[in-house]
């Protein structure tokens, strides 16, 4: 089975990376570089694909962020839930798809399936490497926004289907949730869907994270920084 490298040397050395089918929750307060951390974990290495469901940024901004992080944009797809509300006439391409709003879970599910299908059929980008099943990193940025529009129970059921599907296709999922805006019940329900949780906090302007549920990696707080898609564990 395929193993997804985290790109963080210490973690990959200790655990080998994330097994196919892993769903990772990034639980982070605002202004804590959670987006950058999520994108760093989602950035596709050669032979892989990335799909980002963006409820906060336009597709162009996501693509730019991946480009800055050094990702090959040909292998990055975005499901944009922002742009269509202001530009209704915008049309889908193989790599950029649009849904009317973050409320539109029907559309989000369909676009995700369509994008995965395009990848499986080998029609996503030139220069396919032919790995099968194609390794796909999927990022939801963010569950917090989805929760603003849909009830927890509904979103839980929807994410349940999505995370199961990701396991089936042997992908890896990264989901961002604001740790300060929701009650314990919400956090614990969303955690139930995940196999690994990365908690992030900020102390004296220093980002710290600890990882739960990844074998071989101790659950201690580690200082880290993210720059140009590269996460560095600080001493």
């Amino acid at each position, binding site marked *: 089975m395929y193993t997804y490298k985290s790109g963080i040397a210490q973690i990959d050395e200790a655990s080998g990376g994330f097994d196919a089918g892993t769903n990772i929750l990034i639980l982070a307060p605002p202004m804590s570089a959670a987006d950058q951390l999520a994108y760093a974990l989602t950035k596709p290495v050669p032979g892989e694909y990335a799909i980002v469901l963006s409820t906060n940024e336009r597709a162009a901004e996501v693509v730019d962020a991946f480009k800055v992080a050094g990702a090959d944009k040909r292998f990055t797809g975005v499901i944009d839930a922002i742009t*269509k*509300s202001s530009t*209704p*006439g*915008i*049309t*889908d391409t193989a790599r950029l798809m649009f849904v*009317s*709003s973050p*409320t*539109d*879970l*029907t559309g989000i*599910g*369909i676009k*995700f*399936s*369509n994008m*995965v*299908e395009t990848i*499986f059929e080998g029609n996503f980008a030139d220069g396919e490497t032919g790995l099968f099943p194609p390794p796909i990193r999927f990022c939801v940025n963010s569950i917090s926004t989805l929760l603003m529009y*849909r*009830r927890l129970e*509904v979103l839980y*059921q*929807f994410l349940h*289907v*999505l995370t199961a*599907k990701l396991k*089936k296709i042997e992908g890896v999922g990264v989901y961002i949730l604001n740790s300060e805006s929701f009650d314990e019940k919400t956090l614990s329900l969303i955690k139930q869907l995940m196999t690994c949780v990365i908690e992030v906090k900020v102390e004296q302007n220093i980002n710290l994270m600890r990882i739960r549920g990844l074998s071989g990696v101790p659950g201690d707080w580690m200082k880290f920084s993210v720059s140009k898609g590269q996460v560095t564990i600080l001493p």
Partner: protein
Amino acid sequence: MISTGINGLDEMLGSGIPDGSRILYSLEPGVDGQLFMISTLSCALAKKRPCLVVLPNTTVDAFRNDVQRMYGARPDLALAPVTFFDSVDWERIQKGSKSPEGRARELQARIRKLCREHDVDVIFVYFDLLNEEFGTDAAAAIFTSAQEREKKITLVIEHLNLEGEQLLDHVIRDLNFDLVLAIRSSFRPFPQFNYFTLVHTSWADLPARSVPFIIGEGRVIPYIPRIVVTGPASSGKSTFVLNAADDGHSVDRMAQEGSMTTVALDFGWIRWKDFDITLYGTPGQERFDSLLPSYLGHAMGALLVIDATNADQLPRARLLIEMIARRRIPFAVAANKSDLPGTLDPGLIRRSLAIGDEIPLYQISAIRKSDVNFVLESLVDSITQFRY
């Protein structure tokens, strides 16, 4: 009657949806099934039936654009007799009333007013957000009450079904829906396999059917990607495939005994009753048996063709049946050449092949297109009634 816009489905329903019905298109998350509702809307508009489309999660402009993308230029929503209630209207109601009861009352009044002013015949509702806001019963009541005041109104609902079978049972049993169609996906018999299931029809006693489909040319196409036609050598498989197909290819070569024999695969493509079907005819010789499991791998049905005048073929045919039975797919037996003298008794064939009455046995002549069509029709019927 209103057409669903899918010929194969209309035929199953007995030419479409009766006026005044309640219809649910239940979408499993991730299944590209939005074209079902759009197709029905398009057909209603093409018949100049005044429609109300309720879309609380998007704007009219975004909807028009989506329809055009999914369905091509048709329907021209700018010219059609259609009224919209969209996300802008919904936000206005949300801001206007603080309690869910107040919002429901306001929405109900608004829907009734629109129905009255525009003499609406069919209401199309994107149900998710309303279901979440009011609960299934109260949300449905907003529209069924409009129906009760004006009996001819047909109600068509599309819903992202996160609740599963429970919801379907509820709308059938408690909300008296007339047609429930579940649009689903599966990873069996092959990945990303989409199908729709006719769960309930009030106006006809139909068996629950599951029909695979693909989306192509802006429409829903019922689709059977592979039916394997197999059997002993010289039983008439190639003749069957070629006679069944609109466009078929055989790769027969002259065998040592002087007759033609298949050395690779026969292919046949059929557009039949709006179904797209592909037939794979396998070679009959034992040396190709190792290939049969892979041909059967993603098949949705199989047909075993035997020569009804040749008892010597039966042990070999029985072996092939065992291989098919392992795949647990619908299959039938066609006793070919039954128009010739010396045809074996059907009872003897059943005993020799060890097949019970549940496996259909057809006495046919593969050179007669009507026989071939009959077998195909019965097999497709079995496939669509199979539980995936």
